[in-house]
């Protein structure tokens, strides 16, 4: 029994051993899990043969039919590949990666989650290798993965490594240039993939965090700046241009910026600005302009102003060589130039407060620059120029109604120190701001004067003009030119001339709105221009500039109604050129030249043939005796004997009465022209005038209130003031007698007449339709203006008997002598 047992035992042992052996050798694979077998089978014997297609199909089918196995398949593939990487069998690694790609694409998204973990580990593993080929391969797989939409978010997934590594790849300087380029391209593609993967989902990693943006943005910019030339296009065709790192980097930057929401724009811009600082790309700023244009083109339109804002805030930011003041200034100027280049793109989409915000910011920077500009640095000037350009560019792309708003805004920032009292910085700021205003004004296309000059704006402009340095005043005139000149006549009217026919001026009939405008604001405008001519600090430039303004007004508003006003201004200028004691001889002669050229312009605009004849006579006479009283103006009139002074040649002056006759002959109303001049000579009266100018303008604004409450009270107040009432009571006749009678007090009949008028007026205001009321109230202010003006001149006349309204030429020549106190006010009761 014992041997039998022994034999049995031995047999059992052999059997078991055989089974064990066969298991180990033959049926080993049969007992391994099915997924492992399927995975193993996709690898060929030799890596050159590539993926075994038919087996790959089997694997795909298997993973589709039992998706729960997908994560294990991934894991196993990764392990195999890691081993192959370690053994440097790159062919098999590539096959493993390819298999993973195919599985990724084939499988449905909800089952992918765990598989993706191994997939990304695999990609990372490949990226960690030093072999460029594997790195590029890994990137391609990653990009493929990035394009798949996952519907289950993966909170734990981190892209830290990928951002870091792809950014590093973007900076590759591989010894072989073409390999280096490939690695860079791969790096950019990888970054693009990370952005696509993370940007849309808030739950995964926040790509906008500084730690990522600080890597991504400089990497893209570094590749962009290596391009040979920068061509900025507003929209890039994404299909083309993937061949060069620079182009791809640009496309990627566009995508990034385009996806940035409001809160994220800053996260992109901050590294951009830092990069430009670090790499000293502001000077020259070609690339900076290129980049910022790209950013502006691709940023979502409603956020474009925040780009402008960021750049503006960076104007003063530190940069390389921040210690050196000159370098800083240059840097600022360069940044401002970039700003001026992009600001136009922003303007189209800016609305409301953001516009004023930008303007205000620019002005603040200008002011800061003026405050710094003590040593007259040319760089600082460049900076200011660039800022002003930016302002102009920005305004250029805004709708016209906003331009007026902006101009109002700027003009209100202009410091208006009384003449001669402002500090140097003030006057500098003033001229800078006026330059900005001019820049904005040039972009404005005036259609209707009343729209271009709202009352408050006009008032502010004139106020600035009255209290500035000569250069600033000339600037102000240029602003007026650009706003007034609708028909491009200004360049032809820079110098006073007599030969208007040769200039080819464009003259059109002025519209009704413009007439209303000029009847409302004419005196304010003319008064201010007249005052502008009375300053001893005027240079020839000032005088010529004012000439251009008046000439433009004459052309723009040339009509029968304004002829009287124009000629009256001409007469006043002529008179001041004789009697204003502060003016130099040269200035006096220049004023004569200006007066005659403006007078000649009038018949050119309106048909007043007799006026032209009369003026021609005077011109002929002056040509013979006093050519210095004709244009062109000269800087100095040195060789003038005292007998040739304008004051000594009264018979060469235009005469008020003669002008009246000429105008009357053409059937035009001469009442205004015949009236005494509202312009008082010298700057003595200037403060006085302003008080009523402003009052008039102020009244002009709240006309609605005036219609109901205003007129009766005004009438009453006028009545209660004895001087005015008496003046107002002057009847139609122009005799000394009449005046004396009026001075004595209104007659009974006149008083009754007045009462009646008042009653009619009162009832009219209570019953008349609104439009009618509007019509009659509009000129009403003029009456009052005029009354006050007369009142003023009455009180002043004893002090300055030779100035103002009288016509001294008439005293010695053929016209009847009219004493200065003989005033007739026929037009006062026209309304």
């Amino acid at each position: 029994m014992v041997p039998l047992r022994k034999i049995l035992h031995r047999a059992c042992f052999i059997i078991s051993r055989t089974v064990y052996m066969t298991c180990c050798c033959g049926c080993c694979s049969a007992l391994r899990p099915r997924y492992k077998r399927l995975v193993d089978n996709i690898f060929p014997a030799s890596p050159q043969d590539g993926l075994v297609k038919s087996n790959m199909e089997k694997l795909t089918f298997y993973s589709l039919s039992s998706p729960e196995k997908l994560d294990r398949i991934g894991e196993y593939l990764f392990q195999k590949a890691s081993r192959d990487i370690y053994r440097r069998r790159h062919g098999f690694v590539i096959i493993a990666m390819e298999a993973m790609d195919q599985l990724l694409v084939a499988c449905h998204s909800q089952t992918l989650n765990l598989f993706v973990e191994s997939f990304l580990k695999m990609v990372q593993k490949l990226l960690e290798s030093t072999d460029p080929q594997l790195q590029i391969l890994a990137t391609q797989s990653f990009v493929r993965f990035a394009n798949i939409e996952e519907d289950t978010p993966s909170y734990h997934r981190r892209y830290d490594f990928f951002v870091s590594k792809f950014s590093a790849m973007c900076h590759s300087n591989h010894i072989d240039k073409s390999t280096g380029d490939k690695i860079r391209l791969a790096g950019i593609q990888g970054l693009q993939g990370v952005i696509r993967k993370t940007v849309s989902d808030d739950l995964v990693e926040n790509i906008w965090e500084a730690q990522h943006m600080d890597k991504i943005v400089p990497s893209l910019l570094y590749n962009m700046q290596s391009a040979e030339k920068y061509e900025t296009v507003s929209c890039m065709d994404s299909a083309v241009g993937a061949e060069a790192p620079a182009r791809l980097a640009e496309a990627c930057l566009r995508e990034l910026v385009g996806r940035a929401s409001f809160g994220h724009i800053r996260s992109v811009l901050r590294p951009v600005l830092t990069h430009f600082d670090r790499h000293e790309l502001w000077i020259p700023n070609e690339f900076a302009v290129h980049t910022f244009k790209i950013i502006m083109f691709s940023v979502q339109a409603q956020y474009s102003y925040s780009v402008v804002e960021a750049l503006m805030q960076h104007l003063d930011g530190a940069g390389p060589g921040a210690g050196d003041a000159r370098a800083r200034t240059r840097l600022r100027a360069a940044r401002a130039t970039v700003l001026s280049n992009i600001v136009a793109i922003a303007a189209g989409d800016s609305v409301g407060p953001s516009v004023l915000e930008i303007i205000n910011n620019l002005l603040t920077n200008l002011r800061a620059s003026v405050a710094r500009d003590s040593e007259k640095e040319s760089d600082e000037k460049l900076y200011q120029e660039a800022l002003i350009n930016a302002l102009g560019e920005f305004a250029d792309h805004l709708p016209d109604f906003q331009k007026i708003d902006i101009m109002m805004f700027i003009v209100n920032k202009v410091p208006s120190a009384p003449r001669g009292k402002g500090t140097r910085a003030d006057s500098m700021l003033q001229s800078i701001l006026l330059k900005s205003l001019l820049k904005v004004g040039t972009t404005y296309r005036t259609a209707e004067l009343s729209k271009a000059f709202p009352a408050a704006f006009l008032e502010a402009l004139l106020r600035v003009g009255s209290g500035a340095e000569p250069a600033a005043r000339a600037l102000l005139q240029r602003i007026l030119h650009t706003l007034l000149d609708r028909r491009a006549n200004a360049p032809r009217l820079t110098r006073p001339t007599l030969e208007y026919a040769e200039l080819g001026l464009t003259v059109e009939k002025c519209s009704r709105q413009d007439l209303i405008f000029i009847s409302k604001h004419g005196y304010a405008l003319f008064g201010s221009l007249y005052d502008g001519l009375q300053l001893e600090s005027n240079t020839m430039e000032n005088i010529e500039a004012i000439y251009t303004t008046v000439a433009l007004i004459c052309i723009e508003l040339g009509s029968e109604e304004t002829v009287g006003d124009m000629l009256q201004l001409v007469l006043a200028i002529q008179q001041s050129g004789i009697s204003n004691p502060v003016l130099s001889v040269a200035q006096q002669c220049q004023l004569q030249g200006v007066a005659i050229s403006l007078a000649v312009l009038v018949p050119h605009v309106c048909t007043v043939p007799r006026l032209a004849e009369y003026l021609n006579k005077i011109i002929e006479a002056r040509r013979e005796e006093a050519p210095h009283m004709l244009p062109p103006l000269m800087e100095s009139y040195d060789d003038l004997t005292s007998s040739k002074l304008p004051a000594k040649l009264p018979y060469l002056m235009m005469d008020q009465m003669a002008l009246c006759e000429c105008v009357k002959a053409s059937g035009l109303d001469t009442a205004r022209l015949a009236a005494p001049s509202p312009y008082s000579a010298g700057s003595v009266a200037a403060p006085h005038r302003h008080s009523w100018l402003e009052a008039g303008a102020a009244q002009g604004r709240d006309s609605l209130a005036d219609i109901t409450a205003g007129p009766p009270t005004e009438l009453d107040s006028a009545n209660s003031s004895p001087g005015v009432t008496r003046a107002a009571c002057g009847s139609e006749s122009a005799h000394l007698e009449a005046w004396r009678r009026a001075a004595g007090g209104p007659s009974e009949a006149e008083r009754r007449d007045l009462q009646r008028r008042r009653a009619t007026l009162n009832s009219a205001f209570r019953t008349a339709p609104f439009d009618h009321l509007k019509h009659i109230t509009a000129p009403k202010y003029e009456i009052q203006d005029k009354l006050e003006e007369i009142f003023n001149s009455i009180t002043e006349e004893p002090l300055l008997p030779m100035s103002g309204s009288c016509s001294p030429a008439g005293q010695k020549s053929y016209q009847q002598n009219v004493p200065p106190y003989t005033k007739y006010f026929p037009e006062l009761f026209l309304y």
Partner: protein
Amino acid sequence: MEDYKFLFKVVLVGNAGVGKTCLVRRFTQGLFPPGQGATIGVDFMIKTVEVDGEKVKLQIWDTAGQERFRSITQSYYRSAHALILVYDISCQPTFDCLPDWLREIEEYANNKVLRILVGNKTDREDREIPRHIGEDFAQRHGMYFLETSAKEAENVERLFMEIAVELMEQAKCKELPKYDGSLGPINGKTTSVGDSSCCLRS
């Protein structure tokens, strides 16, 4: 399964031309590349070492020393577990810049980061910074100190190995998860004592 137990990020910083790339190349590839060009942006290397029988993977980010790349290199400091600050012992200016570098590290890196001061190029004859100056500086600023030569492969292996050891000890006592970007506080960190040869193990 991952084939390592710990992953540490090591970032090298320092002036241009002090030999950062050479140190990394010597350690990861065992070679000294003569005429190595300036690094652009950031370079990346990986090396797995074994400490106490456990595999530790070191991600080494080799940054460009040039000023213009400073903004991108700074962004790599934050996630670093260890920062190696390198200067050239034969070049005084690279040593003089150390305070600037420290300020930058202070600003951008995790404040608990392991900081190691390395004086490179000990093979050079024209030494300008005596060893004790570097040691003093490291001691004052709470850094570890080591002098190396990438050319002669002197102390290079040790530098990285001791970083791995130190970081692993920290990780073990803090039970840091492998992928955690934020490093816990380092306890009992002391500066090098007089014997510089075991400075890392103080």
